């Protein structure tokens, strides 16, 4: 189905909008065909994307929610510095995080030199998970912090007055802020499922090993294979939409517990 364009055709698409619309239409058709009939390489790319971003999101949620809640509920000497770092992390370019992880995990890097089984090698899905976890962590922590801080401080005092320990009160506040915490997780997911720079750097876009939807889209676009790239893009959009819809459903349910 996919057809590689010659240079002249490539230029034409950029100059003539009707050709672009034509490509978009074909891309949509191809996306539907790919989803309906399936293809082994596509399934592999989609599953790897979901696995890498899913594990990274799980790790960043397990770390980010407690970190965000701690920043939102407590005050300590380095609190302002950590909040500033979290906000900085929320706007950090993913490709720069990819570069840091690349340098950390490379064989002569601070972590890579140990050659430990616990430290993932470069150009593996493990390295991509590390990079995506670092990208999502400040997003999850920052939005969780904001959600927790939005809960009336008197509620926490009332919970303690009713006999809650500090931990029980903190947990209650996180549960009260659950709609915002779900937003934090959605933001973290959005930040990594669509991310390309970091996974390209640390994963290397190796077919069958580290190729995910975003890096495959870049590759197919560079090859001038617009229809297939669009098809992948539409599949990525569809996956993002479905997962966000599921999370919003969860958010709606938790709002009425």
């Amino acid at each position, binding site marked *: 189905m996919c057809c590689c364009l010659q240079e002249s055709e490539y230029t034409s698409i950029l100059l003539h909008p009707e050709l672009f619309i034509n490509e978009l239409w074909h891309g949509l058709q191809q996306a539907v065909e790919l989803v309906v009939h399936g293809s082994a390489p596509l399934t592999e790319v989609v599953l790897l994307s979901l696995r890498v971003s899913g594990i990274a999101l799980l790790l960043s949620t397990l770390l980010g929610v407690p970190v965000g809640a701690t920043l939102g509920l407590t005050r300590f000497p380095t609190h302002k510095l950590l909040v500033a770092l979290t906000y900085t992390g929320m706007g950090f370019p993913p490709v720069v995080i990819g570069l840091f992880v690349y340098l950390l995990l490379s064989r002569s890097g601070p972590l890579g030199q140990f050659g430990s089984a616990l430290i993932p090698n470069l150009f593996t899905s493990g390295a991509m998970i590390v990079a995506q976890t670092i990208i999502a962590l400040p997003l999850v922590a920052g939005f969780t912090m904001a959600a927790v801080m939005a809960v*009336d401080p*008197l509620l926490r*005092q009332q*919970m303690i*007055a009713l*006999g809650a320990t500090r931990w029980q009160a903190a947990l209650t506040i996180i549960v009260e802020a659950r709609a915002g915490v779900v937003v934090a997780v959605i933001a973290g997911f959005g930040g990594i499922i669509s991310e390309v720079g970091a996974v390209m750097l640390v994963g290397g876009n190796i077919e069958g090993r580290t190729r995910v939807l975003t890096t495959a889209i870049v590759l197919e676009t560079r090859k001038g294979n617009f229809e297939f790239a669009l098809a992948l893009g539409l599949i990525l959009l569809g996956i993002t939409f479905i997962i966000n819809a599921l999370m919003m459903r969860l958010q709606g349910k938790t709002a009425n517990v």
Partner: protein
Amino acid sequence: MTPNPCYTLLDIGHSYGGREVLRIPRLEINAGEILAVVGPSGAGKSTLLRLLNFLEAPTRGQVIFDGHEFSADRQMPLTVRRRVTTVSQRPMLLNRSVQANVEYGLRLRGHRANIPAALAAIEQVGLLGLTHQPALTLSGGEAQRVALARALVLRPAVLLLDEPTANLDPYNVALIENTVRDLNRQHHTTLVLVTHNLFQAQRLAQRVAFLLDGTLVELARADRFFQTPQDPRTAAFVRGDMVY
């Protein structure tokens, strides 16, 4: 019969940002009594309740509750702290059902949902028809009654009430007053009521304390407090004059 103090406050001083907002050389609150604390805004009434609920340790001095000391250096054990609870001016309910709110304190104590006790408390405040209603959809009066039921279900030894009926209509005021009066009579629960409403203090309290600018000006039996106040500032406050 000699009164049995459940609280003894000794040489209490409490400060925020270097400014002392409460100074009480000595105060005893008797087990099973209803003590009203009155005074103008900023007099230190709510601060006093936070100390009595062990939410803040006094900057100076100690609060002795049932033989346990609470001070800047010594925390109150959790089991003792859990014998005291507060109903505040704002109900501060959780975004859950009425029943889940009422069961909250029980769950904190490790009890699984105690539906009969929760339902009994909800019935006591006249909200049995709203058991499964989301608490945040209730009116102000209903929400405050849920807050009271949430405290009642714990059967506290001491119930601290911080302006519990402020901004409520007469029906809800009467219902809350009757409920806490019954609690005191049937279970000998000690009640400390902070209120701006002198009529409410007169209706409920056995003793009344007048706080002004962080200082305990007068503490007397309710009839004496209102009929023959000893301090001219108390007399002025009872008359309804502006007191600063």
